[in-house]
């Protein structure tokens, strides 16, 4: 276990380093760093001060060391538009995105797993077939258009839910959250459903395939032979075993949810990091784009690592094969 952990950690550090080099090459070597890192509106004195501060007059390898050093200290440049520390700006938007992603994840699991198991237990029934048809639709519906149709339906035609924004927030440990107020929840609901739809379809497929496979296994036959009630077999024995792929995929998908939140946040004007990224691209606020890139890479590596470790805990076979290898 420890060997595995250390090896995975080593890999992660390597990936972060590789990404840092790629970003550095992208920003400093291919692009003109003066254009990218210094605001076009800066005057001559400001430009020179910034060049000296960023060390752009030094040789390339020294610049790389400066870049790494400031990145390690959490300094990824300053936003042109907001005139604040880029990383701090993104982090201040992180809670809104995480709130959205977690609610969407909950919807995906608590809707997807039961529906998928139902479809898996009765694959040829009308219910099973309609669940699968729904999941194909969920896969194919373009995320942004589906979000717009949710707005059209619930905000424009029926006027029951707000069309965008975050609504009323309350501070919990100094972080503003929406889900504790009624108004905030109303604002949260549509974006969360929008973000959850694709993942729900995915979970339905996984749960269905897992259930169909598990029902043929010897342990289910044995449980049945032992005289357990069908409900107990499905809810305890089968459910536990299909959770392994579901947990892995959802863990990995948490990252992609944060990425897809870019779309949802743009459609619903949800003030999270994704919307900040799109706004920054539009306003050519490049330090924020670079900082977002580095932060998401880091976030992804942490998530991948966590999923691998969780997998290792859930499935003893993975642990054993790794030790042997």
């Amino acid at each position, binding site marked *: 276990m420890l060997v595995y952990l250390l090896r995975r950690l080593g890999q992660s550090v390597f990936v972060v380093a590789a990404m840092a080099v790629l970003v550095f090459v992208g920003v400093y070597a291919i692009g003109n760093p003066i254009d990218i890192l210094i605001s076009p509106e800066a005057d001559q004195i400001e430009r020179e001060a910034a060049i000296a501060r960023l060390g752009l007059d030094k040789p390339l390898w020294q610049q790389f060391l400066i870049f790494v050093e400031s990145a390690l200290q959490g300094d990824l440049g300053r936003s042109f538009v907001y005139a604040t520390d880029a990383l701090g700006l993104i982090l201040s938007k992180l809670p809104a995105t995480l709130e959205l992603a977690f609610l969407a994840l909950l919807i995906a699991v608590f809707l997807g797993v039961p529906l998928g198991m139902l479809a898996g237990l009765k694959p040829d029934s009308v219910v099973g077939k309609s669940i699968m048809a729904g999941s194909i639709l969920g896969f*194919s*519906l373009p995320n942004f258009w589906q979000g*717009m149709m949710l*707005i059209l339906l619930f905000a424009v035609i029926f006027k029951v839910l707000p069309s965008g924004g975050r609504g009323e927030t309350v501070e919990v440990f100094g972080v503003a959250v929406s889900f504790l107020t009624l108004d905030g929840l109303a604002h949260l609901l549509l974006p969360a459903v929008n973000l959850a739809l694709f993942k729900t379809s995915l979970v339905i497929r996984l749960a269905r395939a897992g259930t169909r496979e598990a029902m043929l296994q010897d342990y289910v036959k044995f449980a049945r032979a032992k005289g357990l009630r069908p409900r107990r077999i499905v809810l305890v024995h089968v459910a536990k075993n299909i959770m392994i792929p579901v947990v892995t995929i959802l863990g990995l998908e948490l990252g*992609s949810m944060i*990425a*897809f939140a870019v779309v949802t946040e*743009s459609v619903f004007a949800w003030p999270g990091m994704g919307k900040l990224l799109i706004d920054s*691209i539009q306003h050519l606020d490049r330090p924020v784009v670079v900082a977002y890139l580095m932060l*998401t890479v880091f976030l992804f590596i942490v998530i991948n690592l966590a999923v691998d470790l969780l997998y290792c805990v859930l499935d003893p076979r993975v642990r054993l094969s790794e030790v042997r290898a």
Partner: protein
Amino acid sequence: MTDALKAAATPTPLPRPAWRTTPLARFAAEFTASPVAVAALCVTLTLALLAVFAELITPQNPYDLAQLDIMDGMLPPGSTDFAGTMTYHLGTDQQGRDMLSAIIFGLRMSLGVGAMSTLIALSLGMSVGVLAAYFGGKVDAAIMRVVDLQLSFPAILVALILLAVLGKGVDKVVIALIIVQWAYYARTVRGTALVERRKEYIEAAACLALSHRRIVFRHLLPNCLPPLIVVATVQVAHAIALEATLSFLGVGVPITEPSLGLLIANGYDYMLSGKYWVSFFPGVALLVTIVAINLVGDQLRDVLNPRLRR
């Protein structure tokens, strides 16, 4: 084709003489066994034809400003134009552009970008993957590490970042989609090629002292095609959806050559005041395209997957 249909309609087709069933005929028979898949294939082909012959079909050329009349702006579906000669079946946008024509031209853009990026990414990923499998060892390890690394990031994020660096433009969208997609093909073809490589015909080819290039591209690669075709079909749908999303976010195709995604984005503000048609119909077109291609892909997977063979 008709033979194949008849064979599919009979509940238990008699085994035909071996000399009459070519692999292609068998493939066609199995594919047409599902009416849904046949319908989806017809829809896909129709959409492709619409896109190719857009100028001949559409009532107006939506990008010829001389044909547009600002007086016809934001007309709901079914209205006639100011002069009373033409009906706008799907309404018009703010510049008096017929939405039906705009959608067909948008379809051309969406399908074109999707097909082109998939073709280039397919040939690139295919070559890289088959080389990795054939040579193995360090080449393989290095290539697959890059593939794994790229696939651990969501496609949309990679494409967004690339376009943020590259800027707007059709060519840039295609480049971004190629970079996003190639890894899927590389991984798929490598998996198949690793199995095929150990088979006797490759050994035989090596014994004939054929060059590596000939063995890889003439013997190994053609035998790795079936799973690739499945992945490519599904990836075209992904590419179209991704391009639409990027254009919606304002980092994709330019406003002068709108795809379906950009048409939808144009209608966003009007939708909030209840004028739904500018966004609704391009979205339906996009949805139908993606569903049809996905259904074809699903059926191809069922037919070509040897694990599901009885």
